[in-house]
């Protein structure tokens, strides 16, 4: 009897856990897809004469 009573709640917990896992995975995947789009964007920024840009960034010391 106690087992029967526990069973639905255990099942519920499992489902909830699975849902949480699913959500987490989906969110992580969405985050990564997102990041891929940002990386595409960054890549276009980097295409413009990076070598000249980096060597031209010269400062004097400060403080």
């Amino acid at each position, binding site marked *: 009897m106690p087992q029967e009573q526990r069973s639905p709640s255990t099942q519920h917990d499992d489902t909830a856990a699975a849902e949480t896992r699913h959500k987490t995975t989906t969110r992580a995947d969405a985050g990564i897809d997102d990041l891929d789009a940002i990386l595409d964007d*960054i*890549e276009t*920024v980097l295409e413009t004469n990076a070598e000249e840009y980096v060597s*031209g960034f010269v*400062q004097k010391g*400060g403080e």
Partner: protein
Amino acid sequence: MSVKRVIGTETEYAVTAAHGNPVQWSFDVIAGAADGRARRIRWDYRQEDPVNDMRGRRLERAAARPDMLTDEPQPHITNVLADNGGRLYVDHAHPEYSSPETTDPFTAVVYDTAGDMLMRRAAARANADGRADGTLRLYRNNVDGKGASWGAHENYMMRRDVPFDDVAAMMTAHFVTRQQYTGSGRIGIGERGERPGFQLSQRADYFHMNVALQTTFDRPIVNTRDEPHAPADMRRLHVIVGDANRMDVPRVLKLGTTSMLLWTLEHADDAGIDIDARLGELRLADPVDAMHRVSHDLTLAEPLALAEGSVMTAWQIQVMLNALVYETAAAVHGVDTRGEPIWPDRETRSVMMMWKQALVDIATIRHADVCERLQAEGEASRLEWLLKWQIIERMRARLHPDTPFDEALHDPRLQMIDLKWASLDDEGSIFAKLRARTERTASDDEVAEASHTPPEDTRAWLRGTLVTRWPGQIRAASWTRITTLDDPDGMQWTLDMANPLAYTREQCSAAVAAADDIWDVMRALGAHHD
């Protein structure tokens, strides 16, 4: 107090343009910051005392290098007092923003970020005026990869009765190890990036001494400049080791953890803690070497040699420092039913939670492999070096799938990520594209408000308010003083504001509201005239 104390930041920006030189570009940007009425207010250098040393000595003036003498009037220097009570000016070859005085780390970060907005606006106006043919660009970083470094300084008001040796000992342990969560990440190892690699901090490689007065050569981990801008029983701790972060969380942590450790020094006696013994346990055998090692160590696990012979990792030292704060707070404030100290205010509670989270984040990343580190979204929303590393590593996988990370860093496109991260120009800034993925501690609206409104609870309120209301009636100003032009009777008025926690909105708003001109305010607040 608590995490609350008078805090201010100073940020030097990198500036570039198509032709000319950085000194001229810095003047161009600051000229862009000045509107007509406020531009002729002079900065009052009379109270600056850059050769006073916290260790109780004064450097002979003749022995000081000329670039340490910031109280000498310089013929070309341009200063702009901002409506928010801060200051924009040319410092050497960089435009610099000093925030107004604030009283907690969260507000300090809001005003620090407001500086970006003011500088961006200044550069835009300078470009629109045709200066440098409209090619001026600003960056919030600290290194050019060719040997030059510039600063992002923190200032904390603290009790003078804490022995300076204790301040130096605790701050050394903290500054060497806090890099793990405050670093903004850098491509290149060594001052000129002589060796390929990625490191946690922008600034670490430029520090060569443990404790000293100067800031532009042989930089020390603990700077002893003792120029309080405050009453005689207080000192200002001037911190020069930090990175100019773009993210909010590392900046709140940088200011918040340091403030809590200063509080701990101020209250260790009350708590019955033998602070000298505790600091002795954390004394590094070679702090400068440790500073470099921690920054270069992406495993986050390198053991650091301690003076007493054993070893500890940077993370372990941070855990010990954090525990020392808890122990002191538990004795001073008491504990609740869960054993948590009863923190006296929300800001302190938040900083202590964020510090704990940072220690958890570091532990998680320490045990994560490369794949897991690339997926670590939450940690990367708080650790700036990690987010930067993720972007560089992902880009390396695209551009050089078969080349090891360090080797691929020779590609200028990857180096460009590090520089463009720091760009204040929203279109070209890589950080701007990622900002929404980072944890914020302030909204854009709060930052915008802080760009033209002074903090209410320090003397910055009166400074900012007077500069906003009557810029044409002010002759000179400094952190501690405001001097008017002559009033109609030919008298010049000077208000001394030695205490940063006075001249607040609460104390002065009635006098300002009742005044027709700045001289009314001066008379109401007891200024003297000559």
